[in-house]
């Protein structure tokens, strides 16, 4: 066991040595160290002065520079034994810190290489049918004796026959018919598979499609059928689909997305050619793509500016008196929530407000019957935060029914109300389900959490008894809270599906079943501030909305995205196959999401229109920072952090272009 010096020794050495650390250098036998997996090593570290004299470190400790989260995975340090242990292969940085010499910190980083264990097994996966003049779709899995997979390691590939050609990057092409043995070798371990290459049976390919002319954004389905020289159809051939295109607009490039199953969607109007290929046989079919032509005038109907506070979320609801009302929250302010009469959207009126001990009322929701509202609380002076339940049967005279803080001390950021239950986020970790049948006495009946170390939740949305929670890096969780699909209820929430994606920025979710196709999607929008917070310049935002096809709940598939260059997504709403999404500095965007969805919806020109939501009288004048949108009785209500509550209307008319320069318009439908 490495000696840990006593306090007196340490302090003595510290005070007696009149040394300057800049004259000392840390040396260690960690330099150039190579370890095997599982091996331990007791390093010896010391300081050396300019004369090359060696000074013992009174105390030395080590750590993996990757930090605590990877400590156990790569190289760990046992302080009691004074040993480092190699746990994962690769080159790792180990920091050695020498304490007690000189007046400054002494440390140095050493590269420690942990070698891979010997390869245990190589597995080669080969397609069933392989044809001459095609590249083979092979995959190689290499596992070592410690169970680690080796990715990116170049294997030695050899073929027993010249019917296979292997290039420098291990692409394997079948150049003649016959049988060959392909061998992959690494570290003396090899695997061999027999590959049978057939002559291309095709004489011709016929390609058909369900559309001859399509709009940008329309998904066109191509089907290739192969025939032999006798005219007989050959089934289950691995066709490769590609496209070529030429834009009508010489300033634009033809672009689109084509999938392995033959689906193609174009982003630019133009003439395209879609090809199906197998080996040397190919066939193409032209496609004329015209502009989607769905632009509509989006005009602002009304705006009620909150000039002295940042506005946060909002909710529009029909009151028990049949009139229409709104509640809005405030952000980084004084704990105020405002109530508005929005029956006449052109003349919305502030009718009441409530102020609680808080700085931020981030979320506000109202029960389906319009009697109860709940506002969230962050920044309470007593740090208990939680929620306030309000009586809004008379929105002109809102009253507090109860305050609820249990398990919610850290602040409530979002919540939802559904069928006498409130779903309240408990400080970013989980949501609690409260029975609010008696709103003066909310009772906790359930709770849902992902159950992972580092779990984090941002929002929850309920529809048809299913809770859709957005959990940042853990993506969206679909939880049965009364739908019955998984036997769940508010007191017994049961998760039944989940989807995650790479950015880990899932901030909001909205489910919808496409009216035009019947496909069940959940739209997942990011929230990303790539450059952090800036108080003096406009905020930079990023991220987009991911469209995930949940038809197969066990295997949800991300099929499309809506991304506006230069701005990021926030909250969203879907109604009648139209997406309404607040894009922060990009305003509220209205997007046609009818039909099948594949690829980049913005580039496909599916945007119907948008409105910039800033106001000359706003908290920050003329600045747009759209928070969310809600479709209500034909209007698009929205909140903007700087301008308050607004409402827009999507016209049936095309945008008025009478004041625009015709020469900078986008290409329309060609003749």
């Amino acid at each position, binding site marked *: 066991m490495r000696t840990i010096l006593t306090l007196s020794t*340490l302090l003595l050495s510290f005070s007696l040595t009149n040394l300057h650390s800049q004259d000392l250098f840390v040396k260690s036998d960690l330099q150039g160290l190579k370890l095997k997996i599982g091996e331990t090593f007791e390093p010896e570290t010391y300081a050396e002065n300019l004369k090359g004299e060696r000074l013992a470190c009174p105390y030395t400790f080590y750590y993996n520079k990757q930090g605590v989260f990877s400590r156990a995975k790569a190289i760990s340090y046992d302080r009691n034994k004074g040993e480092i242990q190699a746990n994962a292969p690769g080159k790792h940085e180990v920091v050695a*810190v020498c304490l007690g010499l000189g007046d400054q910190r002494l440390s140095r980083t050493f590269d420690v290489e942990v070698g891979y264990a010997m390869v245990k097994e190589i597995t080669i996966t080969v397609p069933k049918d392989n044809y001459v003049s095609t590249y083979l779709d092979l995959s190689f899995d290499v596992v070592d004796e410690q169970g680690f997979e080796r990715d990116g390691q170049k294997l030695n590939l050899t073929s027993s026959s010249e019917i296979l050609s292997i290039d420098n990057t291990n692409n394997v092409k079948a150049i003649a018919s016959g049988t060959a043995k392909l061998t992959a070798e690494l570290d003396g371990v090899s695997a061999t598979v027999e590959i049978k290459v057939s002559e291309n049976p095709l004489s011709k390919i016929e390609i058909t499609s369900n559309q001859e002319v399509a709009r940008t954004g329309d998904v066109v389905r191509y089907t290739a059928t192969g025939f032999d020289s006798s005219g007989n159809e050959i089934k289950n051939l691995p066709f490769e689909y590609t496209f070529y295109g030429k834009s009508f607009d010489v300033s634009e490039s033809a672009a689109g997305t084509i999938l392995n199953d033959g689906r193609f969607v174009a982003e630019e109007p133009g003439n395209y050619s879609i090809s199906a290929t197998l080996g040397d046989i190919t066939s193409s079919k032209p496609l004329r793509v015209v502009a989607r032509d769905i632009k509509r005038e989006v005009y602002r109907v009304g705006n009620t500016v909150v000039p002295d506070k940042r506005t946060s979320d909002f909710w529009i609801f029909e009151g028990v008196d049949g009139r229409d009302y709104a509640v809005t929250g405030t952000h980084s302010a004084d704990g105020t929530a405002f109530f508005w009469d929005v029956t006449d959207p052109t003349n919305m009126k502030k009718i009441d407000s409530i102020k*609680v001990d808080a700085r931020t009322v981030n979320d506000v929701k109202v029960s389906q019957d319009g009697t109860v509202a709940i506002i969230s609380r962050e920044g309470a002076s007593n740090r208990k935060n939680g929620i306030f339940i309000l009586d809004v049967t008379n929105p002109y005279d809102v009253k507090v029914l109860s305050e609820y803080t249990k398990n919610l001390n*850290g602040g409530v950021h979002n919540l939802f109300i559904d069928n006498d239950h409130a779903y309240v986020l408990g*400080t970013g*970790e989980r949501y609690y389900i409260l029975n609010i049948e008696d709103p003066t006495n909310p009772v906790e009946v359930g709770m849902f959490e992902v159950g992972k170390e580092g779990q984090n939740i941002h929002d929850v949305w309920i529809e048809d008894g299913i809770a859709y929670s957005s959990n940042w890096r853990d993506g969206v969780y679909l939880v049965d809270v009364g739908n019955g699909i998984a036997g769940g209820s508010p007191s017994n929430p049961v998760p039944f599906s989940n989807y995650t994606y790479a950015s880990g920025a899932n901030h909001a979710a909205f489910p919808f079943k496409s009216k035009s196709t019947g496909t069940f999607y959940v739209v997942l929008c990011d929230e990303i*501030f790539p450059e952090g*917070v800036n108080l003096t310049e406009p905020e930079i935002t990023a991220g987009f909305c991911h469209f995930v096809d949940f038809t197969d709940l066990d295997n949800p598939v991300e099929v499309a995205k809506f991304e506006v260059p230069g701005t990021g997504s926030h909250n969203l709403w879907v109604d009648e196959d139209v997406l309404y999404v607040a894009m922060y500095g990009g305003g509220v965007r209205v997007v046609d999401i009818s039909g099948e969805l594949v690829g980049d919806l913005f580039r496909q020109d599916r945007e119907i229109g948008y409105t910039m939501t800033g106001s000359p009288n706003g908290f920050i004048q003329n600045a747009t920072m759209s928070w969310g949108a809600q479709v209500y009785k034909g209007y698009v209500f929205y909140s903007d952090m700087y301008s308050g509550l607004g409402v827009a209307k999507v016209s049936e008319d095309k945008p008025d272009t009478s004041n625009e320069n015709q020469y900078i318009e986008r290409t329309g439908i060609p003749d």
Partner: protein
Amino acid sequence: MKRLILFLAFTTFGFSQNYYLYVAAESDDTVSLIKFDGKSATELERIPVGIKFAETEGPHGLTVDPSGDYWYLSLAHGNPYGTLTKFSTQTNTEIATTELGYFPATMEISSLTGLLYCVNFKLYGTMTPSSVSVVDPQTMTEITKIPTGVMPHGSRISPDGRFQYSVAMMSGELYEVDTVSLEVNRVLQLDNNHHMDHHSMNHQGMDHQGMDHQGMDHHSMNHQEMHHSTTQPTWVIPHPSDSKVYIAGNSSNEIIEVDTDSWEIINRFKTGKGPYNIDITSDGKKLVTTLKGEGKTEIKNLKTGKSKIVDNTTKVSHGVVISPDNKYAFVTVEGIGGEPGVLDVIDIGKAKLVSSVKIGKQAGGIAFWKLEQ
């Protein structure tokens, strides 16, 4: 000789002295650089901090490294873990950030090890033991988490840099961490009547990493039966020369004096309502305590035992730091709701508020940077 140097250093000789501090506004995600010239405090700069504009990330703890070249800020809220960010005092721009635990709060750097010790307050949801994160501020690497009690707060280092002290607010314990071995050295229960004997628990021996946290059913745990401290300690400060530490009993309205040689409570002084943060003059004579529940600051003469109370500008007094010349106590006051946070400057000798300056909402964390002639 040392006293003479100090005397010369801090005697005004007719020169004005400028005091510089950093103050965090927890509900505005800003940190203010404050200058006090002996008469008036002014906000020199308001520095935006954090990553997400639309989320309040809660800058909480602040400390300046011994060289004065860098300041460090803990951001309480993250996804889900909070972060520690290193800033340059020259430019007040961010240099590096690293992730810590749940709600990282107060911190200090040991002059002996050069490491930064930050408590993870873990204000979230269910109350479970949390930890002290140890960070190498040179590389901004969190090198380990040391498990401690429930809602640890008030990370302060002994004058020799050898021990880090923190208190666990909800389990009512004082923790002493060995800054060199990075292990809990001793634990002292501060409550008079406690149900759960955390002291006898072998926290060092617990394998927190190996625990199956996913498998734990936190929801159904009977948290009502867990020990909730009657003291609710929120701060601990070591005496600059004696073997003592002083602890703020936020719920019991007292200052607890602990002898670190015998490791036992030797005194309990009653205070005003809600003592929260403490600092002690470098001569060890006066203890300055914020009284969160009253919006006041208490100055206690440790020799005579007498106290003087100073009203703060607004409500919810929070942090306190004393100038190196022992003349002034700088106190943050949170305010309520939309009120601005305030930094109050108190003349310790006169027990008088001499200046105040408004900053961002919920002023909390505070760190002294430098004193200039």
